[in-house]
């Protein structure tokens, strides 16, 4: 049925997005009402509002969408999702677009992929996230200048005992890494 609809609409990108988003077939029902774009706290900064993106997905404008900043403006507040009159899982569509953009290296003018990578690397390594590690690595490699500005904040956090110098590792890290390895091997929805 989904296959049929996407074929009829002749958009390979539409099918790709639907197949890689849980509950994605609801995209077919978009009324272009804009309650998503209206709800988005960062809607004003988006190159294309989610509604526009759905139109572009229908029009098979893959490159244009995946190089846009739209999904990177998404902070997962889920307002669009709960308000969508057509039950489109918009936030999850944004996650899907992020995954596709990262996978195909199309993400432009954003450090989000880097932040994500740094974060999950630490997670893979220790099983816990580690703010100082995250901050220092992320800023060092991505925005060294900003790091200086962060200095005072880091300091005040530190003096209040809100930043630790050593990462914490979970006991059974082996188990977690085995699970992650398996997941990588199976390959997730991208």
């Amino acid at each position, binding site marked *: 049925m989904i296959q049929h609809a996407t074929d009829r609409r002749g958009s390979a990108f539409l099918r790709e997005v639907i197949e890689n988003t849980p509950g994605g077939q609801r995209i077919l029902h978009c009324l272009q009402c804009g309650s998503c774009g209206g709800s988005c706290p960062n809607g004003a900064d988006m190159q294309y509002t989610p509604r526009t993106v759905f139109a572009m997905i229908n029009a098979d404008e893959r490159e244009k969408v995946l190089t846009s900043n739209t999904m990177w403006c998404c902070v*997962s507040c889920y307002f669009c999702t709960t308000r969508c009159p057509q039950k489109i899982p918009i936030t999850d569509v944004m996650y899907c677009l992020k995954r596709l953009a990262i996978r195909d290296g199309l993400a432009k003018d954003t450090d989000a992929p880097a932040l994500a990578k740094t974060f999950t690397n630490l997670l893979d390594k220790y099983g816990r996230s580690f703010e100082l590690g995250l901050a220092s690595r992320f800023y060092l490699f991505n925005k060294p200048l900003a790091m200086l500005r962060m200095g005072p904040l880091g300091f005040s956090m530190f003096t209040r005992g809100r930043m630790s110098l050593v990462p914490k590792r979970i006991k059974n890290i082996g188990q977690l890494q085995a699970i992650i390895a398996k997941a990588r091997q199976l390959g997730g929805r991208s």
Partner: protein
Amino acid sequence: MKYAYYPGCSLEVSSAAYDVSVRAVAELLMIELEELDDWNCCGATEYFSQDELTACSVIARNLALVEPRLDQLIAPCAACYLNLKKTDRLMAEDAAMGARVNECLAAGGLSYQPGRVRVRHLLDVIHDDVGESAVRDKVVRPLAGLRVAPYYGCQVVRPAAEADCSEYPMKMDALFTWLGAEVVHYPVKAHCCGGHMTQLSEPMAFELIRRLLQSAVEYEADLILCMCPMCQLNMDAYQSRVNGFFQTSFRVPVVFFTQVCGLALGLEPTRLGFGKEIVPAMPVLEARLGAAPAASSR
């Protein structure tokens, strides 16, 4: 009432105040918390933007670690709460996905039956399971005269409006009315704090934070109550930079709802992690409530 407890990474260090106050308040309200042994990070939003299966598997490990005799799990951090819930639902609704996640868990000798564990947030446990009368009975230091702005943020009330209404939640409002506080109408109570945007685009993030602070000032709140480490960090730690950015002079204390709740229940501020916040809260608290009367306090 016994619940499994998943503190989440932030509560370990950067938001230790939340952790200690959660434990202290829970104890007083007879909410028995049993920390999940060897839990791991939930991956925040970062794993989902890279690889869904890994994201779910990493999260599902925690669900799998919940002891069979327990069927409810409390996660005070909004991001953790949502991730745990989302994964459980995803596994339940998409059987194929559930199977693949379990295949991954198996690699670690674990397995999880979707729907076995009900993920809860402490606020809704206090509101629904403990209930009004039980809470009122425990109040030794009513918060009379204290004007609080309850801030719920996004990920506890959305996408599933299960813990509370997704548009205009009321459970924290109710709780603090029981505790004798003056709860201000806070229209942005469920709006976004910017999440990880503070790391990515300060102008964007700062604007979101500004809206929250401004609304609190407009409605003359003494302080903002949080139920998520990220929200607290953004509004508290970044407040001075927001001021710098917009030439504003906000000085709104932002603390965890459990901390102030603890005060009302008569706990010592020191036992509730006060002093860890960047914009100090004690001055306004003492101004409104007077210094903690040692006698009644525990």
